[in-house]
């Protein structure tokens, strides 16, 4: 499952069968190598934050939750930046050797666990453990061997 597929998906509250909002951004926990949470745009809930662990399922057409109170206020402390809001997606990718590798096309996640699977740069895929950080200037990955 790519992050780009997640963006735009409706969040469906299974207890009332209503749409709470649509996912418009995500935060990655880079040291933990997994998806931390999502922002629910135009949310009808108490806030716009949906932690990954509070999701019931990610389907092809919707992300489901079992109650609307799963959606709450955005935490003050986040382990990473907003992939879309901070322009990480589509932004610059640098190797830890200081070489520009291209731009970040997408991030591939495990749909069950939210674990990071690979970092997608155009038609290249880099292993999840090569990711060093996602910052305001660039996404940093370990220098791939093919130079």
């Amino acid at each position, binding site marked *: 499952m790519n992050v780009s597929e997640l963006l735009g998906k409706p969040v469906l509250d299974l207890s009332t069968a209503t749409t709470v909002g649509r996912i418009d951004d995500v935060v990655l926990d880079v040291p933990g190598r997994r998806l931390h949470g999502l922002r629910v745009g135009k949310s009808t809930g108490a806030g716009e934050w949906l932690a990954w662990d509070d999701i019931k399922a990610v389907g092809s057409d919707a992300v489901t939750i079992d109650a609307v109170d799963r959606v709450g206020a955005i935490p003050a402390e986040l382990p990473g930046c907003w992939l879309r809001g901070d322009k990480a997606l589509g932004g610059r990718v640098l190797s830890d050797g*200081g*070489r520009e590798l291209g731009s970040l096309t997408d991030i591939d996640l495990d749909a069950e666990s939210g674990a990071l699977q690979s970092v997608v740069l155009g038609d290249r895929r880099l292993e999840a453990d090569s990711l060093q*950080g*996602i*910052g*305001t200037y*660039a996404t940093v990955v370990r220098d791939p061997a093919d*130079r």
Partner: protein
Amino acid sequence: MKGLLRGTDLVGLPVVTLTGDDVAEVRDVVFDAGHGQIVGFTLNKRSRLGRRLKEVLTREQISAVGPDAVMIPADVQLEAADFVEQTDGDSGGDVIADRVITDTGVVVGTVTDVVIDTGDGSIVGYEVVPADEPDQRKGRRSYLPLPETGAVSGEALIVPAAAVDYVSNDLAGFAEAVDSYRDALRGGSR
């Protein structure tokens, strides 16, 4: 493969932490010509008209120097410092515009830049305007390899006469020239 860059190529490069944030950009590169090493970088603020920062980046703090960025660990604390104290007299600092003379007394040219091996921050050679080059042919540059021990620099920069045989006209072929020159030096001393 050696990654060779000119000193002036580094000026303006962003200084980026491994977590992906840009903290400064390179204002100037400080060398210790006597030891043939980069001492560090002075920095500018990261903006269009970035002012000079008091903080500097020393060589030990740098994680890697690449063609597109200078990488530093996320936990580096930049500290204000003055590099002048670290270089000693004639051997430190500015070699740009110095004349290069061989130990046999022949002027090779004038230094226009230094060539750095980005792997270890050492100076592997100089970019020179050849002395026999008429002024009207602008832009032609030669690259002169240095022995591993570095050259003596004072009033002029003294290099071994044999270095001239390994002059190369582009940076791409220069890495090989440096290697073969240094190999030849090692072979000769045995």
